[in-house]
């Protein structure tokens, strides 16, 4: 068979890869997408929350047939110590709108659906096919890929790397460095199955309403980390993630943290009687703006997690992935439709468009946050949650102690733990990083 050439090859069939492949194929480009998993989503571990706006920009009528679980009407943020949580809950009937803003999804199902859309748009999708190497011409321009299946190079004008957070292809080809332990989190997740009605009762939900809990505190044992609990239709996804560098220095094990989170008195009743179906672990890029690598070159560009496009502060990843994939597809189509070559100069359009989108603007806003949370992890994830919990309990427990003494005791506890100057400094630094 003669060597075949495509307009574009997309490596990976996650959110960013599917967005890129769909964007190009639906505009009539000849697209090949290669996925190493058995099916799209088979390798995915995301929680997951999917934001509608970013998908609407790709597939406007996705609500008609996409496998959506619940639309969250309630968000809880918990500061946890070992026996308590101090919570901030936001619940609004406004989230019960005709076109909800976000949904919980199960990626294995969602990605299959997305991939079907990609194929219907005209792309050729091969699963169980691992790209082993990028093929270059003598000038170093990427001209195609080699796979682990018997056969020649598959040629393409441009290769979109959507290979995920620890994509070996790009790092092996020297397009970017391996992510550093302090810029990636390791998250573990379980799926707990419960009848739909039980989930509705436990969280006070009717119909497709959902609830999202995100929790930080002593559950991460002083490490920079976050736990989560999302309601799906007939299951609960819950997990916890911490920075890889923190796991390395504390020698804590992820599954032990997850077990402790599940046994926490605030969590245990929510998942009681459930059947565990899946246990999975994955890396999450947490380096923020400063960890973004070179995004394009001669004949290639990189999108999604592989480009470290993840907003750790707002726990947004897949919408950045989708958006970067879409923008990459649009930029490539722009170059392609003018019959221009896929050179570094021409593909710079992708970066320009991405810089002007919320993706890079948001990451820029929090560029100092990852470093701050990393260096002060013990204060933010251990000391403060405990102090806040003690203060709350002190406030609520009525035992004949005069209120003035209670307040003094609380203030003293804060000062003893962090000192006045320490607290001011924490607040100022947090404010600056947030700004």
């Amino acid at each position, binding site marked *: 068979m003669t060597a075949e050439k495509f307009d574009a090859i997309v490596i990976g069939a996650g959110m960013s890869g599917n967005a890129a492949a769909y964007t190009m194929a639906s505009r009539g480009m000849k697209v090949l997408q290669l996925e190493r998993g058995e099916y799209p989503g088979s390798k995915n571990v995301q929680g997951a929350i999917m934001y509608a706006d970013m998908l609407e920009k790709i597939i406007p009528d996705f609500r008609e047939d996409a496998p959506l679980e619940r639309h969250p009407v309630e968000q809880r943020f918990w500061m946890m110590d070992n026996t308590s949580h101090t919570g901030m809950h936001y619940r609004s009937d406004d989230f019960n709108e005709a076109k909800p803003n976000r949904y919980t999804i199960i990626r294995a199902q969602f990605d299959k659906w997305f991939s079907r859309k990609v194929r219907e748009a005209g792309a*050729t999708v091969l699963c169980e096919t691992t790209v082993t190497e990028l093929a270059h011409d003598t000038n170093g321009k990427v001209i195609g890929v080699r796979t682990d299946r018997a*056969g020649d190079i598959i040629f393409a004008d441009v290769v979109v790397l959507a290979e995920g957070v620890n994509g070996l292809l790009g790092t092996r080809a020297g397009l970017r460095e391996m992510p550093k332990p302090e810029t990636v989190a390791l998250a573990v997740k379980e799926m707990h199955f419960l009848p739909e009605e039980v989930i509705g009762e436990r969280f006070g939900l009717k119909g497709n309403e959902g609830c999202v809990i995100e929790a930080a505190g002593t559950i991460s044992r002083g490490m920079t980390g976050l736990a989560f609990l999302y309601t799906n239709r007939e299951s609960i996804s819950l997990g916890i993630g911490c920075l890889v560098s923190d796991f390395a220095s504390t020698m804590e094990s992820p599954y032990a943290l997850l077990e402790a989170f599940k046994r926490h008195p605030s969590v245990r009743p929510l998942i009681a009687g459930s059947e565990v179906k899946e246990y999975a672990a994955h890396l999450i890029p947490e380096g923020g703006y400063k960890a973004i690598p070179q995004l394009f070159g001669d004949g290639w560009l990189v999108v999604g997690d592989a480009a470290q496009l993840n907003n750790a502060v707002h726990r947004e990843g897949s919408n950045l992935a989708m958006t970067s994939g879409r923008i990459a597809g649009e930029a490539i189509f722009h170059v392609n439709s003018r019959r221009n070559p896929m050179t570094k100069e021409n593909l710079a359009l992708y970066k320009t468009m991405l810089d002007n989108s919320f993706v890079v603007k948001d990451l820029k806003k929090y560029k100092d946050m990852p470093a701050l949370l990393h260096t002060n992890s013990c204060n933010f994830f251990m000391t403060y949650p405990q102090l806040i919990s003690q203060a709350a309990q002190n406030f609520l427990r009525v035992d004949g102690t005069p209120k003035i003494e209670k307040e003094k005791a609380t203030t003293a506890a804060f000062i003893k733990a962090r000192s006045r100057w320490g607290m001011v400094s924490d607040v100022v630094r947090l404010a600056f990083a947030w700004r």
Partner: protein
Amino acid sequence: MHIVVCIKQVPDSAQIRVHPVTNTIMRQGVPTIINPYDLFALEEALRLRDAHGGEVTVLTMGPPMAEDALRKALTYGADRAVLLTDRYFAGSDTLATSFALSQAIAKVGETFGMPDIVFTGKQTIDGDTAQVGPGIAKRLDLLQLTYVAKIASIDLDAHEITVERRSEGGMQMLKSRLPCLITMLEGTNEIRRGSLDDALRAARSQIVKWSAADAGIEDLTKCGLRGSPTVVKRVFAPTSRAEKAAQIDTTDKSLRDLADDLIAAIFTRQPALEQELAVDGGA
């Protein structure tokens, strides 16, 4: 040479469980696979094709989602895929299934050339009956070679095939005329990884989809639930055996102590044996 391989999309039985209260099979979220025995059949068919030329057609009866299994078979290197799908087939037992498949194979023969060999797996891992292969052979009046472990040789000019058949007493070498039906055992080969060309072709090819009418099936009373005399009376999960293997701690022990522990452990479970041996020892 034209070879037809019958495959079935089955739930991955390693991941299936029975609901503790209702005793129904919990299929939710259980991934589907190609019945593993069918993959041995497919690989054997592909090898025969590669050595002697010809085509391999894969055939399945199932819901529209069974297309995934067929596409996968194409990725392995099959030349053509036919999906027999119709609501009239829902609820088929082995009698109805072998009826529908035999009719479809006849139609495949008419349309794409008469098959020299029809392959099936020995059995499926969800039904475990091993009845469909022989059922097809009977209905199509094909010679049947069941429990085949290996194709020893094939002589297309003489229309003969020689196979190794595993039987309780040992291995039988059987020679048969073609055309014939072969049900394939496990462990004879390993399904290949299709080439890039195979994968591209599989992703792009149209799966042939036949309804009952398309396959020339006129007697619908022999199909699906109506054509299935088998009734499932009860489904239950067998309880696992209470007795577990005894474990003997081997740390810091001499061989003699270990041997003593081992014998003691055996005697605890088999007191009769101890008495028997004690009597023998005394005699």
